[in-house]
């Protein structure tokens, strides 16, 4: 990775955005990889990993809500920040700018639906063979 490339470099394990923070920007992974994780009662659950050209943190921008998950670099990663104000101004002028974001969110809903379906199968299997799993155990099971 070139030192003078666009964006900012994050070291392995460095936090890009933290769960619960108020977000005024989105991120696009330019190089390397990050993990998206939930922090709950002092434990961490890795939801997924994201690589090059993936858009992250868009929920906080659109929902006016605190960030729902933490983004952390896995190895050295280069991330570009997208300003909320610039992004919203551009969408106002050119709604088609949101096509790709909608496409990404749509793909994630599809992936989540698939995962919910798989989890339901796991839960059913567990319930049939013993006590019900906690939500964290359910996520960990598929991870």
């Amino acid at each position, binding site marked *: 990775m*070139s030192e003078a490339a666009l*964006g*900012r470099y994050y070291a392995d394990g460095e936090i890009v955005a933290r769960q619960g923070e108020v977000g005024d920007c989105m991120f*696009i992974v330019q190089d390397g990889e990050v993990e998206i994780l939930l922090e709950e009662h002092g434990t961490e659950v890795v939801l997924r990993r994201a690589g090059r050209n993936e858009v992250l943190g868009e929920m906080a921008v659109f929902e006016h809500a605190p960030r729902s998950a933490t983004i952390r670099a896995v190895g050295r990663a280069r991330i570009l*920040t997208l*300003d909320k104000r610039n992004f919203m101004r551009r969408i106002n*002028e050119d709604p*088609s*700018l949101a096509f790709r974001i909608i496409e990404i969110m749509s793909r994630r809903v599809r992936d989540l639906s698939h995962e919910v379906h798989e989890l339901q199968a796991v839960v059913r299997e567990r319930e049939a063979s013993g006590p019900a799993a906690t939500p964290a155990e359910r996520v960990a099971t598929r991870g």
Partner: protein
Amino acid sequence: MVAQLPNISASPDKRSDDVDLVDGSRVAVVGGGPAGSLFSHFLLDMAGRVDLRIAVDIFEPRVFAQPGPAGCNMCGGIVSETLVQNLAVEGVVLETDVVQRGLDSYQLHTDVGSVRIATPNDEMRIGAVHRGGGPRDVTEAKWASFDSHLLDQAVERGATVVKARVEEIVRGTDGRPTVTVKGGDPVAYDLVVVATGVNTSLLKTFESLGIGYTRPKVTKTLIREYHLGEEAINASLGTSMHVFLLNMPRLEFAALIPKGDYVTLAMLGEDIDNALGDEFASQPEVRAVMPPGWDPEARSCQCLPHMNVYGSEKPYADRIVFIGDSGITRLYKDGLGAAYRTAKAAARTAIFEGVSEAAFRDHFMPVCRSIQGDNRIGRFAFVLTRLAQRMRIARIALLRIVRDEQEQHRTPRLSSVMWDMFSGSAPYRDIFGRMVHPAVIARGIVTMPGAFVEWLRPRRPQGKEVDS
């Protein structure tokens, strides 16, 4: 993909009064620079989203990857932070071998001192690129051409590059424009998109087409390239763009843009010429920024291209649209950003609203008008910048305020104004609004007594020190 000139007529089964692009429609894009490439990319992307099959031919005789003037589109080569972000959202990736240097700051140099204005988060948010394969003395192809990279992405989307120079565009008997290249027959298209820039004689032919198009008003700029080597640039100019507010007759604006192995000098001014370039290069403020022993005479190449400073009044007609510099662009700054905006607006109109004059008037022109209106405010904002350039006491006050904001971590009101003026990152109306904000004016009034005292002191010789 590079193809021979197609020799079939466009969509012969369509009626002449069809104004929408339909399956099988053919689009000619004249010019494969950023405006033409981005238009093709967006047109094909949006067509795919609505299951429309259209063919796009990009007429571009040049090979941008070639070093020297033959492959160069002659510009400073700055991708603004807004454009960097927009392209990232669009999925247009700027590879690390295309962006020769990410920039994280601006350094403003005047005869009364210098100050560094950094980006938020210390992030590299501005891209420095070479439009072509680099200056004529490039011996090792370490970085790729920006224009070539965008053209490749358009080709990946499905566009075809026709390596031929367009000689004539006229209206056929069915109302469709026809494109003729050297040694070829006229080929009819459902839409012709003109993305040639202003440094071509082809634009003149459109004025005689009777479509109401007039060429943009232009001014000359001076672009010079200096080979300094990557290490020397890292040690001297670093990752900052260096902007100069020097009180020199005829000089409007000058910047040194560090790239990979080269530094680009970009100058705007009145009747700009070599003599003004030489005079600027000899200024102590410029020499202080460049590495020790730098020889201003040892330049790799130079050009005096035209720049659009007042766009065409009517950059559209039935089945013809002018984008980028050949239509309307932003005043002085962010020409690539304006190319992106007009290319996207034209593509969006063509896919969703049609290719008639009325469609472009109602859906493409508002974006152009927004740029034009913003330029009017920009002209006024530049008058204020020019005042600072001409009045030493104003330069002293400006530097004091910006330095104070940067060092004391105050709300960067004037810093953000200067940042956006130099980077072209925000609309001029936003910048002007912040320029005349009561808090900025109040800060100016408070700073004036100190600036006045400094103004009374005898002038000191300039050093290399940069306050950050």
